[in-house]
């Protein structure tokens, strides 16, 4: 399959003369091929990859999970464990020297000194048992030979430069005392400490909230301008790439499929994969009725397709007056869900975490209510409280005229079948020991206990068919499916009881963009077919905008603003909403 992708022709922009920056390349990667030896034999992670990173320039490396982009970065640092990894072919030239043939001790003098690196997970990338100052200073002591005192002074200076508040306090803190954004700043300070010629950033903002992401991106841009270093920025997010990179390399299934200046690439992408990748991400305006997917642009074998014109019909959102004609289905009044914080010998309650703190909202039948907010704002707790999967502390939930909050166990069991939930993590939302058939049958038996097994199996097949899988998948186990397929199974399970209302809790957040588009489209199709009502919870403002009729913005347990999608996105009233919207990477 991979050969065809390559055959479809992406060697077009190999002319190095095109590359911007100060003209000369700092890094030249030529014909790089990396293999991994696994239980299932040899797996090619990167094949025949070539590109340059200009001095002082930024190259964005884009691709979905498993495309080989992180392996490329690790190869540049020579941090691929061998075995199981093996660099089978190619050259990596850094400032004139061949990195792949350097001795390990000379390579160590490049790592951290001439090439700095920051990673995706700030939470786990710092050593939990050493102080921040120690971790940054040890780079300086290692490479610059600074004394303990001098290294500490320089560290303090670096922490100030990356914009950390109270650097004197942070230098003596441990990682767990810092927020995710702060940790990523420390990682940047650490990587920048020896003023490297090249900074490799592997998904540096993926784990961060949008507002923090913006701050970190700004900081990286600022530092790059000040020190004139080159930057290799790896991400799956095209919006982010457009903000930082002047040159983009697109990877797909271990291959480079396209390369070019960012603006040109976004406007005139040639490879169908790139075009699909750009199109499948919902924009803030001008979206089609259903999102385009990579599958609209090319076949699984890599052959380009013509996108049918009916796929391009624009999305039409209903006006507020029209929306308000629908009957309310879920009415929430002053809902509070507090978690007790226990302490002491016998678990006395010492404090309360106000996860949801007085939220009122109405969700109307057949509509989608989008709930956005940053991590920890209480949006997930609100979703679970509606189904009483988490017990609310106070307030009222009315579903179709019936009290949810006051329902006894029997009434609640009955009500829950009309309200379902689709989860975020496709890996923990399916019981690994049950086949797809068992998973669906469990739901179907709850719904219609009297029906025969054969009838249930038939319904299960139909459900799978409806969510884009097939009856042949019934006998399989969850671990045999990809993330997107598991999410489809989760949707089928929820559909099995024919609910009216579904809570989608970050249901597409863990998926690659192209798969995300497919699932969003599926949700819209199902809504149209069954008249479903959604509460769509997400941290991703573009996705919420695309799918929602009404949008609510949550912060610190409270609903700070609430209106139609259009109102919120074009005329935000609250400062918090404005700040959130300003932080969205705009793309081009």
């Amino acid at each position, binding site marked *: 399959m991979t050969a065809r992708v390559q055959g479809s022709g992406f060697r077009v922009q190999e002319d190095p003369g095109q590359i911007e920056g100060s003209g000369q390349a700092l890094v030249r990667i030529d014909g790089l091929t990396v293999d991994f030896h696994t239980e299932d034999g040899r797996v090619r992670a990167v094949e025949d990859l070539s590109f340059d990173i200009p001095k002082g320039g930024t190259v964005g490396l884009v691709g979905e999970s498993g495309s080989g982009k992180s392996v490329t970065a690790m190869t540049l*640092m020579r*941090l691929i464990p061998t075995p199981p990894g093996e660099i089978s072919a190619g050259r990596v030239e850094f400032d004139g020297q061949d990195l792949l043939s350097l001795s390990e001790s000379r390579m*160590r*003098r*490049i*790592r*951290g*000194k001439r090439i*700095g*690196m920051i*990673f995706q*997970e700030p939470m*786990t*990338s*710092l*050593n*939990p*048992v*050493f102080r921040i100052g120690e971790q940054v200073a*040890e*780079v300086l002591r*290692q*490479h610059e030979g600074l004394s303990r005192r001098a290294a500490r002074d320089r560290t303090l200076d670096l922490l100030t430069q990356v914009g950390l508040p109270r650097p004197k306090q942070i230098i003596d803190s*441990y990682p*767990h005392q810092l927020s995710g954004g702060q940790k990523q700043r420390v*990682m940047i300070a*650490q*990587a920048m400490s020896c003023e490297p010629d090249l900074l490799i950033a592997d998904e540096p903002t993926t784990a961060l909230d949008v507002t923090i992401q913006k701050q970190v991106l700004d900081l990286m841009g600022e530092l790059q301008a000040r020190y004139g270093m080159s930057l290799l920025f790896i991400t799956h997010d095209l919006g982010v790439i457009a903000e930082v990179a002047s040159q983009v390399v697109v990877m797909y299934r271990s291959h480079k499929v396209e390369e070019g200046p960012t603006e040109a690439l976004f406007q005139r992408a040639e490879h169908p994969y790139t075009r699909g990748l750009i199109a499948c991400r919902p924009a803030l305006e001008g979206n089609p009725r259903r999102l385009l997917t990579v599958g609209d642009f090319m076949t699984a074998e890599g052959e380009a397709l013509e996108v049918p014109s009916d796929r391009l019909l624009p999305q039409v959102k209903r006006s507020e007056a029209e929306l308000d004609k629908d009957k309310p289905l879920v009415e929430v009044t002053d809902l509070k869900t507090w978690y007790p914080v226990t*302490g002491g*010998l016998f678990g006395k309650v010492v404090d309360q975490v106000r996860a949801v703190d007085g939220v009122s909202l109405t969700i109307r039948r057949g509509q989608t209510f989008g709930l956005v907010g940053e991590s920890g704002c209480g949006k997930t707790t609100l979703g679970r409280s509606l189904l009483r999967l988490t017990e609310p502390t106070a307030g009222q939930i009315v579903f179709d005229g019936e009290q949810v909050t006051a329902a006894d166990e029997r009434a609640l069991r009955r009500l829950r079948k009309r309200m379902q939930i689709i989860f975020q993590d496709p890996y923990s939302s399916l019981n690994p020991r049950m086949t797809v058939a068992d998973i669906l049958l469990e739901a179907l038996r709850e719904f219609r206990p009297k029906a025969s097994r054969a009838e249930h199996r038939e319904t299960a097949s139909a459900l799978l068919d409806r969510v884009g899988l097939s009856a042949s998948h019934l006998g399989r186990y969850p671990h045999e499916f990809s993330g997107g397929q598991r999410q489809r199974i989760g949707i089928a399970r929820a559909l099995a009881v024919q609910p009216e209302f579904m809570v989608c809790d970050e249901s597409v957040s863990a998926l690659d963009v192209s798969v995300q588009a497919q699932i969003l489209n599926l949700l819209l199709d199902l809504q149209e077919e069954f008249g479903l009502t959604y509460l769509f919870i997400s941290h991703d403002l573009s996705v919420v905008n695309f799918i929602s009729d009404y949008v609510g913005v949550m912060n610190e347990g409270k609903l700070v603003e609430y209106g139609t999608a259009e109102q919120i996105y074009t005329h935000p009233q609250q400062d918090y909403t404005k700040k959130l919207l300003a932080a969205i990477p705009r793309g081009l």
Partner: protein
Amino acid sequence: MLPRYILKRLLGAIPTLLILVTIAFFLIRIAPGGPFDDDRNLPPDILANLEAKYNLDQPLGVQYLNYLGSVLRGDLGPSFQYSDFTVNELIAEGFPVSLRLGGSALLMALLFGVIIGTIAAWRQNSRLDYLLMGSAMTGIAIPNFVLAPILILFFAVYFGWLPAGGWGGGALRNMVLPVIALALPYMAYVARLTRGSMVETLRSDFVRTARAKGLPEWKILGKHSLKVALLPVVSYLGPAAAAIITGSVVIEQIFGLPGMGRYFVQGALNRDYTLVMGVVIVIGVLIVVFNLIVDIIYALIDPRIRYE
């Protein structure tokens, strides 16, 4: 904060110790027989006199409360078997021996176990790793009461390098075999534990960061990984200490050492109520204190743990 934490933990240990004393007290009292009905066949009036002397003629509940009271005053009572000694004196004599034996064994197990485990993790899946871990597994599979006679057979009987038993005033020559016999199984366990935890730590993100910083391998291994990888080993110290105390009962018996463990089995067989109780209490307190020390060490290594 630390003193308050220690106080709180010690208060928290009171129920444990109370339960221990209670169980042990009633368990040994409901046993058939008493301390004076050996083969001596004392006349009834002398027996009654003896029992009155030691308050054994009173109701069990009263005896229990009396005993608790004297324990709280730090008095473990007179020994029935060694009638010239108090239990306090006997324990003061045996405790240092046991402590030295157990302490040396624990240190040895810890030190060599960690070193072996680290080397095995560093050379993960090499022949050296397999050799070390295979030996460690063998070490775990050979209980110390099997190991001890074998060691004696070779080093004392066949080669005659070391004494087969006796304390010798705590001379190094006399210590070598008992300490090795006691330490080896736990050393093997610590080695396996260290290797496992080290291998996992070496895969973690922060080790990748340390590599990307260009740190030399010894720093990555000996500084960044080891400190984190030691945490499970530290947690194991509590159970290990308890096991070593238990193991020293047989080791003291096999090597004929004048430690505390020896008193226990003999005392129990002779129904020497106070001596048995004394040993149980000392060991209970020892375990409580040791667990507390382990928790404090843990919190010193891992800043995420706070005393609360």
